[in-house]
């Protein structure tokens, strides 16, 4: 009985540790170009990131808040870019890596397969690719410290 309890405690603590590792992705991140900030949150067991800040929130042509004008689905081109989910469906696969997700580039309306690798607690390698992981581009994102509001 004592062995069973010990085993249960071991499994429980391992599961808790894995969960804490996975949740390190949560928070506010800034891509290398500094044009936006992306908040990563969890829905169910997966991780999603949405734009919460834009360096240039308004479209210079219309002087209105930017919308997703390049979306391949015409019916969604009026969706505001601020609040747009550009990282979708990431699953923690261990060793500081989140996989199975996609990244959306609002500048050209394209969606790419994506892998996120945490280099350290405050740095992410975001690799977007089409088809083969080797043929892609990596961007470095930095964690932003959230100041209380």
């Amino acid at each position: 009985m004592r062995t069973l309890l010990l085993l249960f405690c071991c499994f429980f603590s391992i599961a808790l540790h894995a969960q804490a590792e996975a949740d390190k992705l949560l928070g506010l991140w800034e891509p290398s170009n500094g044009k936006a900030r992306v908040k990563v949150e969890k829905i169910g067991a997966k991780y999603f990131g949405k734009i919460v800040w834009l360096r240039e929130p308004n479209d210079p042509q219309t002087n209105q808040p930017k919308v997703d004008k390049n979306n391949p689905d015409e019916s969604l081109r009026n969706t505001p870019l601020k609040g747009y989910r550009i990282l979708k469906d990431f699953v923690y696969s261990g060793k500081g890596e989140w996989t199975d997700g996609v990244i959306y580039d609002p500048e050209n309306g394209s969606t790419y397969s994506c892998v996120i690798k945490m280099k350290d607690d405050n740095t992410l390698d975001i690799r977007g690719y089409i088809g083969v992981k080797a043929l892609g581009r990596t961007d470095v994102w930095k964690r932003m410290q959230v100041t209380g509001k």
Partner: protein
Amino acid sequence: MDDKGKVLTLLLAAVLSLVCIVVGLLLLFFSCGSTQTEVLTVTGIELSAEGPLFSGSNTAQGICRAEMDAWLKTMGKTSADVREVRLTRAQMYVPDTTNFDGLASVTLMFASDNIDMQTMGALNPIPAGQHRIDIPVAHSQQQIKWFVVQPAFSVVLDADLKADSDASLGLKADLEFSLLMHQ
């Protein structure tokens, strides 16, 4: 083989190809069979985002239990009879004492642990003084059947708040699905 023979062979090949295509199309047509469309409505899905909320994008979430299996059973059907599902209407509403004036825009998504998230529609801007809003649904919809056949999936609403609020955000959703079914 002389020139005449070559032309004849080519002609024969072309005719055979044409026959194959026609037979293929006929087989496809008859295998599809006739279809019918049914409407499934899920009402009163509660969505909430816990306050305090800050201006900008906030996420309200709820669970949709379409109970499609039970609904199909009443018609003597199963989910295997469902060929395609589309969201045809998404309506959000708040209690009559309040309205959507605190929100600039909303984006509706479906999410599940087993299926990729899908953006189902967006309303931007929200007209003033509304207790009830219809979110125009996306033209491009994929895999909706797989959301609806599950016992439950998440309904996610990204709401752009105009100002900070100490209160939580609570609203309800009615969703209407169109089901294309084998007869």
